[in-house]
């Protein structure tokens, strides 16, 4: 069975390579600052003993105070997994770094989040709507979206 990646592994890894990263654990979930996301994922993808080489799912949640991005990582090498969350406190113009240069599978999922939540992904190669058409007003999975049909 797939095991959770142990906290010590991640903490040791980050101490060595990116000591300035602000992070915390909530119920086995790693929460990290948006600006440290890309460097951390590069590290987690290649660090020996961790090697999270498979990004299974990217999704988002609209909370009253912030938007939260949820990333599910797996390692096909070691059969363990990690849930990573990133919080975007800017509700009017939320943005986060894109993981598409690192994981190709993030491409369509990030476009879906841009389409339905309106979270911009920096350095995404082709960030445009994927389900709805270009002139669609607003982002429908936001809690403040009003259906103007």
């Amino acid at each position, binding site marked *: 069975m797939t095991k959770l990646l142990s906290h010590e592994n991640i903490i040791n890894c980050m101490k060595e390579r990116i000591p300035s990263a602000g992070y915390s654990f909530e119920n086995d979930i790693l929460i990290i600052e948006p600006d440290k996301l890309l460097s951390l994922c590069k590290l987690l993808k290649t660090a020996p003993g961790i090697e999270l080489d498979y990004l299974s799912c990217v999704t988002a949640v609209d909370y009253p105070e912030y938007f939260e991005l949820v990333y599910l990582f797996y390692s096909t090498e070691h059969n363990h997994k990690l849930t990573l969350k990133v919080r975007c406190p800017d509700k009017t113009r939320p*943005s986060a770094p894109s993981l598409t240069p690192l994981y190709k599978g993030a491409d369509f999922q990030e476009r879906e989040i841009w389409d339905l939540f309106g979270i*911009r992904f920096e350095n995404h190669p082709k*960030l445009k709507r994927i389900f709805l058409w*270009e*002139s*669609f007003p607003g982002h*429908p999975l936001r809690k403040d979206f009003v*259906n103007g*049909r």
Partner: protein
Amino acid sequence: MDINIEPVYPEIDAHEAGVIDELKNASAHPIPEPAEWLDEEIKRNVLVTTVDNLLNWGRRNSLWTETSFTACCTFEFISTSSSRFDIARFGMEVLRSSPRHADLMITAGTLTWKMAPQIKRVYDQMAEPKWVIAMGSCGISGGIFADSYSVVPGYNRILPIDVYIPGCPPRPEALLAGIEKLKQKIAKKTLLKK
């Protein structure tokens, strides 16, 4: 921080958005059901009964269906067309991939606004005479998605519908009953109207 997002094919995106907006604005109200077959006035005075009977007999006994199935009602249509319910009994087993060969469109499934221009285009490419059956709740009114931001509330916003078959999804028997109703309707058509 400000990110500059350059669309890769901006003119294609803008064109697509324009087509959908135009169709959406033009579809604020349902299209009424075609009713020329109800008009008996001319039929009583001009006698083309034998020709009509022959034509309508041929038309209603070899309805060829266009395969434009958008969602889950399709599976009821698949079981209708396979051996247990056997739509071949009604001369309908030929499913056409080209709309130019077809004279019946069965709208099996939810339609989104993004898909609507394509469905409208397929309908426009079908040769006259042509008929449309709205199958299932979504085909009739949008079903449980009627209030959604992306779903067309009923195919009758963009196409004239001849027969409505309720159900979510309708049983194959219901679909066959609906096709029988359409045949009764075709039998009443006259050459003198379109």
